[in-house]
């Protein structure tokens, strides 16, 4: 097993992430902790996207919407004085699921290019709705004064919060890994491989895709909840369509249809952004063409590049 470079990479990464807070507390470098908390949260979002994109072949360009939905539920409840996590979090997940159900029911009736455009359009629509919410900050966003209260668990403690996010990320990765090998997972993967064949053997493809879409949206809503708590802030920018683009990049860069690909992609992309923006403020001029090159030459992502060659 150690001969597989992919396993080695993942193991090294997990050890690094597990021990990071220890280093941070010793070196007093809070910045790294904040950066990697963000990375972990977005990796969770990317993992949820991988479910529909990497395994299901559904190119959703509006996935960041659920980051916003999850975040705004927490933000709105906080503003109205409800700070307990036990109420906020399940409600956020429920609302995310509901939005995913509606958007999915409408979008999944189409495929290919239409689907991409429609998910993008709905994301834009919700973005504008958020912008118009004067009471909740509109364009400027909404500050959250208290993080979600969970009794003994103090989310304001950066280290505690970091480990919570990490635990949730690993939990979600594990859940998704089990899901894609279940009967449901095979139904989804079969539909990606050959939709026509699936119908011919008797699968009602639409309903399985819809359920998958809802699951992915809900998990992304969880990431939104974490993001809101992390930044103590929600704004429409969380669900701008470029955020959705970032998530797709993470999934593809890491390696679609692999369990840890999204995490790897998130780490690489966000660390790269940090590094590049240190060099020039016009770093996207480098990232843009780099993305094109990856699409053209390294389509399997990092995990794909590390795949052991068969004899």
């Amino acid at each position: 097993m150690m001969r597989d470079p992919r396993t080695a990479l993942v193991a090294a990464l997990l050890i690094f992430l597990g021990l990071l807070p220890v280093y941070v507390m010793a070196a007093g470098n809070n910045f790294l902790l904040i950066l990697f908390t963000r990375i972990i949260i977005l990796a969770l979002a990317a993992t949820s996207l991988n479910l529909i994109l990497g395994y299901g072949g559904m190119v959703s360009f509006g996935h960041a919407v659920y980051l916003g939905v999850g975040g705004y539920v927490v933000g709105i409840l906080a503003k109205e004085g409800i700070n307990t996590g036990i109420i906020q979090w399940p409600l956020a997940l429920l609302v995310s699921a509901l939005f995913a159900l509606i958007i999915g029911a409408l979008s999944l009736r189409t495929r290919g290019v239409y689907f991409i455009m429609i998910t993008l359009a709905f994301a834009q629509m919700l973005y504008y709705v958020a912008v118009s919410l004067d009471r909740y900050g509109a364009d400027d966003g909404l500050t959250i004064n208290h993080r979600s209260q969970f009794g003994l668990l103090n989310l304001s403690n950066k280290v505690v919060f970091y480990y919570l996010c990490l635990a949730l990320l690993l939990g979600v990765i594990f859940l998704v890994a089990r899901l894609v090998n279940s009967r449901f997972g095979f139904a989804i993967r079969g539909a990606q491989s050959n939709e026509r064949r699936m119908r011919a053997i008797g699968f009602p493809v639409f309903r399985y895709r819809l359920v998958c879409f809802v699951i992915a949206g809900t998990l992304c809503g969880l990431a939104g909840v974490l993001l809101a708590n992390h930044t103590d802030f929600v704004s429409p920018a969380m669900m701008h369509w470029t955020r959705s683009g970032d998530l797709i990049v993470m999934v593809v860069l890491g390696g679609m249809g692999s369990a840890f690909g999204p995490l790897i992609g998130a780490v690489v992309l966000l660390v790269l952004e940090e590094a590049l923006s240190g060099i020039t403020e016009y770093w996207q001029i480098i990232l843009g063409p780099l993305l094109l090159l990856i699409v053209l030459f390294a389509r399997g992502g990092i995990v794909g590049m590390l795949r052991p060659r068969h004899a």
Partner: protein
Amino acid sequence: MPEPLLQIEGLTKRFGGIVASDNVTLPVVQGELHAIIGPNGAGKTTLIGQLTGELSSQSGTIRFGGQDITALPVWQRSLRGLARSFQITSLFLDFTALDNVALAVQAHAGHSFHFWRDARQQPDLRDPAHAALERVGLGRRADALVANMSHGEHRQLEIAMALATKPRMLLLDEPMAGMGVEESARMVELLRELKRELTILLIEHDMDAVFALADRISVLVYGRIIASGEPAAIRANPDVRRAYLGEQQAVTLNG
């Protein structure tokens, strides 16, 4: 006389100005192997599309097992027991042969809203899949990746998947296309065996196979059935000969 298992009545399909299926009426009796032959462009693919539900029809009805399935979507027809194989093979290329057939089994094993247990470790999916693969002669290739299998093996796999859905009737769309002499002979033997348990509607160009297997033959030309009956009668039918020889088809109607 009991109602035919498949009763096609007045089925018509137009694409713009072109009539691809012209008032097709065709009964397929339970237990028979009914072959459909005809020159290229006759509308065989369109007919299959209408029967499976991939294409809508302007008029006409399709009754299967006594029930009107004309408006049913593709997947429901499969669940009713109407299985098909594809002329241009349509498989899950990135999966193994066993995975492919197991998916077909899974489709007919209740709903698939099971999210936890590994589907590859479930005997009630894997065992029937193995059996279907054995049946078509692919038993030893169960763990081969479909993308690495030969064309002939793909065709066998198509049949295995159809069988795995425990159908009442098979719709086979040119199962022997592109096969060599030996492979065709094996396929004919397989169909001969299957004939004993299943009703089969066979679209084929290979005349040797057709005349070896068919209980009845219907001839489709320009979307219309111009003749239908026992093989000997079809062979002697002047309209049929004209349709083939007039089209300069390199087909042997050897007597």
